[in-house]
């Protein structure tokens, strides 16, 4: 199948079909037009939801995976003022590999990379804590969010590589768990003013599209899985949603579009103010923040 992109013929006002071979299905684009499609969709999301102002200094939260690294690459390519922040949880045989990749990538593309680690902030590496029986994912996510907010405080925005799949999964997870307040906290940008605002320029791009973009642009992130990753509720939702998407293309986007149409009402429900955590001073909805509670348990 050929690329379905309509292009203008040289010296002619008429449009013709691109005759290159398609390398992707739905949308059926050739390599060149597929990369342009991903970059344009990112730019359109930034513009439509006013994610970035021209003067903004952006902190891209990078894990070393395809989503965050592709986001860093595209934002830099589009001329935004970006720097990268990585959190080293301390997982031997995993994070050190992705951090090595990130260091090389950022050096090659002349992007400032800051790496902060759990051990300095919480006194222990994640793999030490897990050995003592603490659940890895809850701890990891809480500490990661805490450190991102702490170390990105000097930036105007934190950009994350969350994609359409992540967001559709989150909408369903919150729906199935009846977490209405959490629904109000999703969307292409966060609404809370107490933290640095988080933005998701890949909000409308599928995970598979980002993977294809990374491949086509030689963003060769290492394929490595976290040793503590387990079959989670999100994993079940992801598998189910992918099966549905394969049978009924457009399902993921429909979930997101339906969610966005309800956003105004949901945001009003999430307009509560936050207190200050008495230990770290960060915003907290209930006295001690979750990160400080966990830290005290360790």
């Amino acid at each position: 199948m050929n690329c379905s992109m309509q292009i203008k013929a040289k010296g002619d006002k008429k449009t013709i079909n691109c005759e290159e071979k398609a390398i992707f299905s739905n949308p059926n684009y050739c390599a060149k037009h597929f990369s342009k499609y991903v970059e344009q969709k990112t730019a359109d999301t930034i513009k439509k939801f006013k994610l970035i102002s021209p003067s903004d200094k952006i902190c891209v939260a990078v894990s070393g995976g395809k989503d965050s690294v592709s986001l860093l690459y595209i934002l830099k390519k589009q001329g935004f003022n970006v720097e990268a922040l990585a959190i080293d949880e301390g997982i031997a045989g995993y994070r050190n590999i992705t951090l090595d990749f990130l260091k090389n990538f950022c050096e090659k593309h002349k992007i400032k990379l800051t790496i902060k680690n759990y051990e300095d902030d919480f006194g222990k590496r994640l793999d030490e804590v897990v050995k003592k029986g603490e659940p890895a994912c809850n701890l990891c996510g809480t500490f990661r969010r805490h450190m991102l907010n702490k170390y990105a405080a000097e930036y105007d925005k934190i950009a994350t590589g969350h994609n359409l799949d992540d967001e559709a999964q989150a909408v369903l997870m919150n729906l199935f768990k009846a977490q209405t307040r959490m629904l109000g906290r999703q969307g292409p940008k966060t609404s809370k003013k107490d933290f640095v605002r988080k933005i998701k320029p890949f909000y409308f791009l599928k995970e598979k599209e980002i993977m294809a973009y990374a491949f086509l642009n030689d963003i060769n992130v290492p394929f490595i899985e976290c040793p503590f990753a387990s079959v989670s509720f999100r994993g079940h939702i992801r598998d189910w949603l992918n099966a549905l998407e394969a049978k009924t293309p457009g399902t993921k986007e429909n979930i997101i579009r339906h969610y966005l149409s309800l956003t105004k009402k949901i945001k009003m429900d999430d307009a509560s103010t936050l207190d200050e955590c008495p230990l770290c001073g960060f915003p907290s909805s209930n006295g001690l923040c979750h990160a400080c509670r966990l830290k005290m348990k360790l």
Partner: protein
Amino acid sequence: MEVYLEKTDEHKTISFKGTAKELLEKLGINPEEALVVRAHELLSLDDNVYDTDKIRILSVISGG
């Protein structure tokens, strides 16, 4: 056909001729969760693959 599955780090030799989508179905992989690559070239799901091909199946989903 020689197939390398990135997610499980497996090499398989199978007899197959059909589209990339049909190959994924034969391997029990959801097309939403994989990219099919032949000699550094990304294939669309409609592309034909042949018995003599060396194919890499890249995993879209990364854990962690």
